[in-house]
């Protein structure tokens, strides 16, 4: 058995993920402008930053994979959930957010199940998207 460490994550991924927050804040601002509601919803944008910054700053900082994966999924779920609260989102937007939210939640559940023991049934071939 090789004792060589597994490959480290590319910095591009972490750079990309850590770059999400400003985009979300911008998106929130765009939504606020579009809704015409403005100031009353600024706390939502602020809370997004407060909620996600520690998580985004912690990932890619040398934690083990076992620590980083739950952080990744929980961050994605938290951000998606918060985004759903943005006023004035059209149905298509909510649908897309829900779809990704469901996928992230399912990913979390499967990751957790795999922690309880080896199960080859978790690795059946996946079907293409038509």
């Amino acid at each position, binding site marked *: *058995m*090789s*004792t060589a*460490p*597994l*490959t*480290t*994550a*590319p910095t*591009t*991924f972490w750079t*990309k*993920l850590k770059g999400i927050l400003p*985009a*979300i804040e911008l*998106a929130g601002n*765009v939504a606020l402008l*579009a809704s015409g509601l403005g100031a009353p919803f600024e706390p939502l944008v602020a809370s997004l930053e407060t909620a996600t910054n520690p998580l985004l700053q912690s990932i*890619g900082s040398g934690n*083990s*994979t*076992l620590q*980083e*994966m739950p952080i*990744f*999924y929980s961050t*994605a779920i938290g951000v998606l959930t918060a985004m759903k609260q943005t006023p*004035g*989102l*059209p149905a*298509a*937007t909510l*649908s*897309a*957010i*829900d*779809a*990704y939210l*469901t*996928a992230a939640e*399912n*990913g979390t559940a*499967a*990751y957790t199940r*795999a*922690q*309880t*023991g*080896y*199960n*080859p049934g*978790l*690795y*059946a*071939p*996946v*079907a*293409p*998207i*038509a």
Partner: protein
Amino acid sequence: MKRSLATLALCLMLTACTPSSTPPQGLAPGYSNSADQQMGEILAGAHSFYSSIQQQSASGQLTLTPAQKAAFNDFGVSLNAAQSVYLAYHAGTATQAAAQAAVNTVRTKQAALPTPAVSQ
């Protein structure tokens, strides 16, 4: 007016870990070592993530653009390949390096998935 609101890159990754030549404390049943378990966990999460997107697309709950479909299918192809190599590694018929490379490819493909574009 179209506006892009959501820019989440839902990606999977394999990051640094240092497998030991002896099984570590807390190894879950059925895994042969920590690398085996970590790759298994990562692939299980990626599998479920992809399958969820695939099923929601098939049911019409999620509408993907052609470019998004192509990217997800590319990710799915890499996932199938990685799962095959991982199962072989677990069974002792593939090397850890091969499994690691395949899992890393999955991570790379998932990192390249397009962000969900939504309209306002």
